[in-house]
């Protein structure tokens, strides 16, 4: 299943929508596409509603994005995570680094408040 991403902005915050399976094969490509987007402005919303599978490699890619955002004192919010993926992230200790929201709108409000 190929990986697809779309980039858009909502109220000047970058929103990247990802669909497909994020694993050892697709994660490096995703990372090279998303990293430059962080250059201009720290914060980022990842709309992962379309992600059906996230492997360890995928989790590590998300954590690297988080590190880059923090380095630019921005934040990374994850929206629309499937319950199983959110659950595996919690159990393996990855979830606590991120702000998590059910939808992109909710992610926007939380990012703006903080």
């Amino acid at each position, binding site marked *: 299943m190929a990986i697809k991403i779309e980039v858009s902005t909502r109220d000047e915050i970058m929103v990247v929508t990802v669909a497909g399976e994020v694993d*050892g094969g697709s994660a490096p490509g995703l990372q090279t596409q998303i990293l430059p987007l962080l250059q201009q402005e720290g914060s980022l919303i990842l709309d992962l509603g379309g992600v059906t599978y996230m492997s360890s490699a995928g989790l590590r890619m998300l954590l690297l994005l988080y590190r880059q955002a923090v380095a630019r004192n921005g934040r990374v919010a994850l929206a629309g995570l499937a319950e199983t993926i959110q659950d595996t992230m919690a159990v393996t200790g990855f979830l606590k680094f991120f702000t998590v929201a059910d939808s992109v709108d909710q992610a926007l409000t939380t990012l703006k408040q903080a």
Partner: protein
Amino acid sequence: MDTRIDFYPTHQQQGYKLRPGRAFPFGATLVPGGVNFAICSRHATSCTLVLFEKGAPAPLAEISFPDSFRVGNTWCMVVFDLDYERIEYGYRMDGPCDPAAGHRFDRSKILLDPYAKAIGGREVWGEPPDWNDPYPHRARLIFEDFDWEDDRPLEKPLEDLVIYELHTRSFTRHPSAGVKHPGTYAGLMAKIPYLKELGINCVELMPIFEFDEFENSRPNPVTGETMYNYWGYSTVGFFAPKTGYAATGPFGMQVDEFKNLVKELHRNGIEVLLDVVFNHTAEGNEQGPTLSFRGIDNQTYYMLTPEGYYFNFSGCGNTLNCNNPVVRMMVLDCLRYWAAEYHIDGFRFDLAAILGRDPWGAPLSNPPLLESLAFDPILAKCKLIAEAWDAGGLYQVGSFPAYGRWAEWNGKYRDDIRRFLKGDEGMVPVLAERIQGSPDLYGWNKRGPTASINFITCHDGFTLYDQFAYNDKHNEANGEQNRDGGNDNHSWNCGVEGETDDPEVNALRRRMIKNALAILLMSHGVPMILMGDEVGRTKRGNNNTYCHDNDLNWFDWTLLERNADLFNFTRQMIALRETHALLRARDFFGTGPTQSDIIWHGTQAWNADWSPGSRTLAFMLRERQAGQGGNTSPVLYMALNSYWDALPFELPELPINYRWHLFANTALPTPHDIYEPGHEAPLEQFQHSFLVGGRSIVILIGHP
């Protein structure tokens, strides 16, 4: 990113780009652009790397190691451009098949890498495997990066520990546990608040190295249920956490999940000890499967008789040849890996006496493995706990070669306390030794009370509740006509065998459980509690439940309300131990810098009754200057009465402005049986004697 100048392919086989690898570390290591595979065998003549697509029945490719890729007895190779998450790997080893000479090479077998850091094949606990899979336990690659943030091993002083022995699956598998992922590391993580409330600061996990729960599984002749290798005392891989214990096992994230469990336990002030099994492997004897060691280098990994058969000091078919230099190195590498990569705080060695035997089974006076473990720089702060006996008759409780580093499961403590509690004669003198941390066993060459791990029950044998509800073992469910399991339980059923609704008998059983916990937590040495004993868990009289995946082993959490008084009693006793440094000594009384004393009393103050017929003992713990010159440190007093009727105990005098306060009295029903440390009930000012109920214990605190 590939900054190294020597990382380019030099060979090719079957479309895979290769180059000679690095001889260490052993196992499979991710390197820029590929994976470095390294494995050693002294007697193999050739070696082939076998690659699988994850879960596929047949291999994807077989790459034979060119002889130029060999360094001494170690084959090593880098394979480029592998998808780490989709690959499984194994080895074929060729060599002589001459059992009498100790060689059992078999090229047709695909062998598991002994240094595999993740193992597939049993992703979901108890899911029947494909029995004719040529490679049932498959080595996999892992990401070794994990964000520990600021976590590191807690390095708590051994004397401060209260150890809680638990089985990962049993702890939360019962539906009453109410956790999202029953029977897993994640389930255990969800119960950390329970452990904190109880006051536990160390958990000892029964084997979590990958093992095969289906090893000699068979239907139970009585119930028809499947009987498994449930406890896991038969290791398949020494470097991989059991995948079936991980909620994320099916997604291959068991390594991250277990590391996160250790991190969460540490964050809550709880140390993690691993129960490790280096005395035998899952390959059993000649009839057992060839999974790994037997096919890689049988003569090196196993203790063999001159005729090439397997010595059986473990009672499980084979004996790992721990004092062979290569195996010794593997054991050391394994423990260092868990200590450094998983932040593990210590290890409990199953049947550790075997580690002190030479390759022909003779006990060594200065076993190299135990010595190198005791002085290893990475393991320097790890607790090393030995079950100081083995199934070959070597019993070393008190004489285990310790180099001042090793602690031991004190089997004598277990038996002596059980016998005193049930009212055996002649136990008072030896009870006094146990309470002091067993100086009779550990008082030589600078060992202290922390050499003694005190326990009354453990996974092997009765639970504490069953200890006072059954005279005899009831192991019919194990399918061996009740012949398995020990017979020297020193238990007493308080008058009725098994469950009863007689209120007197049940009240006596609760009292006996409280008496046991009171002695355990007041004794010098390191106390260990068996999971569930704090709420009266029962195994219905079965003292050998190694094979049951059911409520014989599962922790029934509904016991929390039914036996809330036992939970409260345990919690307060642990709190008492935590409050009073007097109870957590590093040195035996009268030795070492701490100036504290133990003074023996009996039904008469200052005059303990050591006679054979006596069933009473009392003692007082205090700092030498207590009550003098402004020193207001508290005095602890404990009266133990294992006689069946009440006895008045004369109380020793206290310093002038001190007064006795009642902390615990197991003769009284809850909530009067125990108080919160610091909120004890004052006795009458003039009271100089206290009636201690039959088979009861009283603890008093003397303070201004």
